[in-house]
């Protein structure tokens, strides 16, 4: 649904991060973890197009949802500058959500940077299904891991990892996941959202360990509706002769890691 969504609350976090809560009843009612919205500060004359943001939490009663925003350029900046009461043009919920893990597999949610966003809602969904998700949260340095607390509140264990070791295990987040697997030897199902190299690493790990992985890709998106064909990713589906371009906005952003043709991306 395409609506003008008023900003109802905002929480500024350290660095370029903030959590913005918008009123948009259809998103609040229908959103599933892994889905996203296309957002634009209404008053802003530039940039031209909306930007995709994962749905982090929903409040079904209040008819609101929140996004975890990292300011990186004009679109995110215009959103970051919204004051409570101001409007964002908002289309959503969009895209295919994460699907629950196969029976008997422990859901490991692997996040890099703002990729943590969808795992908040996903953790809630999994808990509601009686599952026990576990989050691995990676970033360059401690300053990038600003969204840990909410998971404590949810009672979801979170393992941080930083490239510089300033918080949690030193090195890539996939290293922390491997360590955990070594230690538990439990069958797992991976869910990954974050920078492309991290997603690729998770896909590789999943293959080595023979466990399923759902990855949330983030190609550039122009419309979110399947019409601009800007967001296409190469997907090789079983039974298909050759890989095909598929819209991440309508057939993703969540894909089975085995179907993603990882080389395609420059």
């Amino acid at each position: 649904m395409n609506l003008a969504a008023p900003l109802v609350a905002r929480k500024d976090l350290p660095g370029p991060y903030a959590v913005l809560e918008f009123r948009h009843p259809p998103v609040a009612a229908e959103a599933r973890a892994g889905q996203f919205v296309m957002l634009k500060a209404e008053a802003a004359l530039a940039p031209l197009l909306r930007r995709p943001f994962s749905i982090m939490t929903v409040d079904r009663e209040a008819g609101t949802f929140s996004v975890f925003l990292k300011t990186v350029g004009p679109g995110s900046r215009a959103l970051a500058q919204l004051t409570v009461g101001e409007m964002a043009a908002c289309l959503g919920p969009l895209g295919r959500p994460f699907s629950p893990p196969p029976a008997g597999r422990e859901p490991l949610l692997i996040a890099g940077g703002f990729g943590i966003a969808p795992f908040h809602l996903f953790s809630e969904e999994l808990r509601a299904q009686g599952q026990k998700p576990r989050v691995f949260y990676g970033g360059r340095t401690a300053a990038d891991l600003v969204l840990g607390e909410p998971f404590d509140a949810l009672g979801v264990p979170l393992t941080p990892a930083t490239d510089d070791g300033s918080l949690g295990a030193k090195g890539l987040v996939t290293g922390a996941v491997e360590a955990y697997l070594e230690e538990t030897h439990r069958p797992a199902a991976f869910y990954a959202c974050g920078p492309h190299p991290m997603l690729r690493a998770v896909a590789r790990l999943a293959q080595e360990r023979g466990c399923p992985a759902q990855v949330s890709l983030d190609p550039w998106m122009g419309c979110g509706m399947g019409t601009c064909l800007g967001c296409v990713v190469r997907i090789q589906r079983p039974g298909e002769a050759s890989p095909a371009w598929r819209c991440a906005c309508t057939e993703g952003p969540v894909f089975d890691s085995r179907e993603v043709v990882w080389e395609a991306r420059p």
Partner: protein
Amino acid sequence: MNLGVEIGAGLRLKNPLLVASGTFGYGVESAAFVDLASLGGIVTKGLYLTPRGGNEVPRIVETPSGLLNAIGLQGVGVHAFVRELLPRLSAHDTAILVNVCGDSVDEYAEVARVLGAVPGVAGLEINISCPNVKKGGLAFGSDPGMTHQVVRAVREATRLPVIPKLSPNVTDITVFARACEEAGADALSCVNTVLALSVDVERRRPKLAFGTGGLSGPAIRPLAVRLAWQAARAVKIPVIGIGGIASAEDALEFLIVGCRAFQVGTANFADPGVHGKILAGLEDYLHRHRFTDINQVVGSLEYPGLPGRQQPP
């Protein structure tokens, strides 16, 4: 108050707003977000005889008030369109125009023939101006002789209204407009995207994988209005204005310079609700200026030094 217009060969639209080729998929994608019956018409994504994969990514990048794209005419091909998509699309009460592409004159004609043989297609827009393919496209649209050949071949292949889509990347658009008219075109679409290049200075490579791309959006509107105005004055057949339209005011610029209808492209991406706003704005304008018919606005430009306002037939 009448918003209905005719764009040649008896092709009537309930209102002058069409969605531009390549910015609205095959129509069905957006049905969830847009009431298709509210549109004057839909121009589909460009179609060849066979399916096309399109270009590598990145395919799209934003520029100041503009969008640079090199999708490369990814598409399902005319047969799959006729078989799977056209029936679903026909369920909606709006005019369906198909954007016809080809690597050769024959392919254009063949695609037209296929579409002429099935119900539900209101007209053909002939894409001789796509800058994002290695063969055909712009090559046909930047040579008056080739333009004439393609349009003539399509004209002979179908009875459907034939609407060549002109390129802005030419010295004198009136030459191409007249070539199309002579070749039997029923109307003209003005214009396609502007051939452009945007560079990633950190990597010293084009931002788009394809290299150059087609520029669209508000950035090109003043150029597109000029071209549509020149084309409309050069021919008798109707002209459909395209380029950077995102509001009723933008659309009125094209109508006032002589366009019978207009297409909304990039703005579909920015706001799926843009159509309702534009149509409401047009009605409000007619009301404020005491017009009863949108056609009264067409060609009403008073241009310094030119004989008074042109009136539509």
